[in-house]
């Protein structure tokens, strides 16, 4: 064997320095777009695309992915029979789009990856880079959209309303496997989902003339649910996946991003220990609660992503002045409040990230449970006790809020009004952003748009900002 002694001890083969490397990515796209208009009232459109790539280890007929869409528009107001004077402009639209998707990194057959210089022998060797999944298919997504566009005389009221529904089949995801299979997880087509929603946009000219005032209202709704899921997640996986961590917690019939938590029974009077439930009975066996709670016994709060959202914009202008006020809102969702996890405050290097002001609110002596829900600190720390409290229902709140997003005020000096100006136009403006939360459902004083993820304590609410400026054009 080609070994030599290492200093101070041991020995190793002399590296052959041989290696295999070379990367070659190939992409090919074909694209077709067709549009057909008839009498300026009917429009049909179609588009199709094929994206090909040198995906490795898939059958040749799967190397290209299809995408296509069909659409139609009918301008009713241009028809002879149309007589709705109130809405001189009215049209209907609908479309359907489809696409397939395959993850580049996974294949249906077993593949090896070669490397050089095996430990001890220097031989070239291979590892399994992908264990074959013969049942692998494309993800398929279809979206249907129906819409109305309308406008009243002189565009006093104009807007559109879109309704869509969406189905996705064979969505790719990871499923954990028992280790006796030889792997820990495998990506495959384990789920289906369905979604629907609408977007409403209305713009109203309240005043026109010297003083003009336009109000624009945006209102959207989005909901989704899991319609098939082949994996049975554990309770601790479901609670650990919050919507705000962009980790899905799919449960049949529930949104892809939902918020689950352990049932909470308060703090024990004598010890300040958190109390949960096991099979319907109050329990302090944290390991059993964390590991053995059936997913059906978890508390489901609701969606972790807003179900309704939008904004109201008011724009006023008078002579050279203009004022713009934007208010946004998000409704119908839940979030998990970050709290103290005692076990993490001793973690080397990241301890400072785990400290939370709830430490100060903790239970310290019997009776405190009347004022606080933060458990006592016990040492040595018990990880499962901390995990249970962190993911208990007591730490879930409604995310709904209304925010005064921004205000801008500007004045425009135009050359017309001030002929002596050396500019074509000069604008002075004041812009304030992230001004305030006007209303929020949670009582913790937390901005639901700035909830830190996991151990991250660096996330902060976007600070208000004010800018003052001058803008000239020549």
């Amino acid at each position, binding site marked *: 064997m080609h070994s030599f002694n290492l200093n101070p001890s041991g020995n190793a083969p002399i590296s052959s320095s041989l290696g295999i490397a070379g990367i070659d990515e190939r992409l090919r796209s074909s694209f077709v777009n067709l549009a057909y208009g008839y009498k300026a009232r009917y429009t049909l459109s179609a588009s199709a695309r094929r994206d090909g790539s040198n995906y490795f280890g898939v059958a040749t007929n799967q190397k290209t992915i299809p995408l296509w869409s069909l659409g139609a528009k009918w301008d009713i107001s241009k028809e002879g029979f149309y007589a709705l004077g109130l809405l001189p402009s009215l049209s209907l639209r609908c479309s359907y789009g489809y696409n397939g998707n395959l993850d580049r990194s996974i294949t249906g057959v077993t593949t*090896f990856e070669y490397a050089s210089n095996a430990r001890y022998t220097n031989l070239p*060797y291979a*590892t399994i880079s992908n264990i074959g999944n013969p049942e692998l298919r494309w993800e398929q997504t279809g979206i249907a959209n129906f819409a109305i566009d309308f406008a009243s005389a002189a565009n006093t009221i104009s807007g559109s309303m879109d309704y869509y529904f969406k189905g996705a089949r064979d969505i790719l995801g990871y499923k954990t496997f028992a280790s006796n299979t030889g792997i820990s997880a495998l990506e495959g087509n384990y789920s289906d989902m369905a979604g629907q929603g609408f977007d409403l946009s209305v713009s109203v000219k309240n005043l026109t003339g010297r003083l003009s005032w336009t109000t624009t209202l945006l209102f959207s709704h989005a909901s989704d649910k899991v319609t098939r899921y082949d994996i049975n997640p554990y309770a601790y996986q479901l609670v650990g996946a919050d919507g705000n961590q962009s980790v899905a917690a799919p449960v049949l019939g529930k949104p892809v991003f939902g918020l689950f938590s352990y049932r909470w029974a308060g703090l024990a009077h004598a010890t300040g220990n958190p109390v949960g439930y096991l099979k319907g009975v109050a329990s302090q066996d944290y390991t059993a609660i964390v590991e053995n709670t059936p997913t059906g016994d978890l508390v489901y709060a609701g969606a972790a992503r807003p179900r309704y959202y939008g904004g109201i914009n008011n724009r006023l202008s008078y002579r050279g002045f203009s004022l713009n006020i934007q208010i946004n809102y998000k409704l119908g969702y839940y979030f998990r409040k970050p709290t103290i996890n005692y076990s993490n405050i001793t973690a080397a290097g990241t301890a400072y990230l785990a400290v939370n002001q709830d430490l100060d609110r903790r239970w310290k002596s019997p009776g405190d449970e009347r004022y606080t829900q933060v458990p006592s600190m016990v040492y040595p720390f018990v990880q499962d006790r901390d995990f249970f409290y962190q993911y208990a229902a007591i730490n879930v709140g409604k995310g709904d809020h209304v925010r005064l997003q921004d205000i801008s005020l500007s004045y425009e000096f135009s050359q017309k009004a001030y002929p002596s100006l050396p500019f074509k136009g000069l604008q002075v403006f004041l812009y304030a952003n992230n001004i305030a939360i006007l209303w929020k459902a949670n009582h913790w004083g937390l901005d639901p748009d700035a909830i830190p993820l996991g151990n991250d304590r660096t996330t902060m609410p976007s600070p208000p900002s004010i800018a003052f400026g001058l803008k000239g054009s020549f």
Partner: protein
Amino acid sequence: MKTKIANNSLCLLIIVCTLSACKKDWLDAKPNKALVVPTRLADYQALLDNSQQMNIDQPSISMLGDGDFFISDSRYLGLSPPEQSAYLWAATKNFYGGAPSYDWQVAFARILAANVCLSGLQSLQELQQTAAYQNVAGSALFERSLDNFNLSQLYCKSYDHSTADKDLGLPLRRSPNVNISLKRASLAQSYGQIISDLQQAVRLLPQTPLYPTRPSKAAAYGLLARVYLSQSDYNQAGRYADSSLQLYHQLLDYNTLDPAQASPMSRFNAEVIYHYTLCNYLAFRTSRLKVDTSLYQSYADNDLRKSLYFIAQGTDQSFKGSYDGDRLLFGGIATDELYLERAECYARAGNTAAAMKDLNTLLKTRWLAGSYVPKVAASADEALRIILTERRKELCFRGLRWMDLRRLNKEPSFQTTIRRIIGGQSYTLLPNSARYTLPLDDFEIQKGGLEQNPR
């Protein structure tokens, strides 16, 4: 009609945009030169040559409980939850601290690799008579058997002929299809698989391997001897130890080694038939492991192992005698083990002279040149007692003691009780305790649907 369409202002717009190369197989190019869909014998051989997977990390967490070493209270606190549990033979609940069992995981990953090879060979049947094919097939069977055997010593009860049909064995994976879920076979079925894999391997493997990291006929015979020994089938164990030694029987004269070295034994030394190392647990580090005092004191002063195996750590001794030639602990197959196995089987068969001859042949190479006085035994029983004592002294820290405790505890005259004190509290492992079988991790019970060991 034609004019009507024109009047109605037909508007047709087509954009076709194709960015394509002329060749149809353009998309078949490999994105990464290192990737292959395995089709050739060489691909499967390359998978088995991955020493980083195949020749390290053999199941060994049981060694923490075998009593050949102890660790200080403060070092105990620094161990991972599974190590702490194994050290104190803890109860099943939370044994692995919520993590999967590492030994179980890595062993089954290797079994999967072996099964990928064996299933790949099915489409290469035309090459069946070639040496390359037989080496791949024999190696894959050997690896699968080795892992199944090592797993059985941790996670299954010690083999007992009268109950093996009912005792829980292993989920026996014979296919690379990960979608198949299995129940635990019986212990008798598991041993049946282990032995039949090895018997096939013996026929396929070459007499001399190209590298000690590849199995050979002698290695397969050697493993068969170990397997039968664990079943207390001393006839077969002796037979296979002999078959292996017939093929290769070289011993290393310890007088040629330098005790001043940090690792006096070299990797792939003359005694090594097949090289592999044990899972590298924190407790096995020289700085933590403290050799059992009575074990250390059992070596005579002229016994070279006293200075070649051990290194002083403060007032205690640690181990430095691994045949890995480095800090990893060797668990592979070597001639010294086979001499001791054949000697034990001779003694058990009543052949005192042959037993003592094997023992003395080995020990002569372990003692200072000229100082060794051949041991004599008045009876086969006495020979057996001497051989078992020498077995523990020669093969310590190779992951074999656990198997020996399990089988020898069945004989009243060789029973051992192991005691520990940690944090002022004492712990005891009684002979034949159910704690000699480690629990499966919670994931295997919940996800894999396997039955837990009663402990």
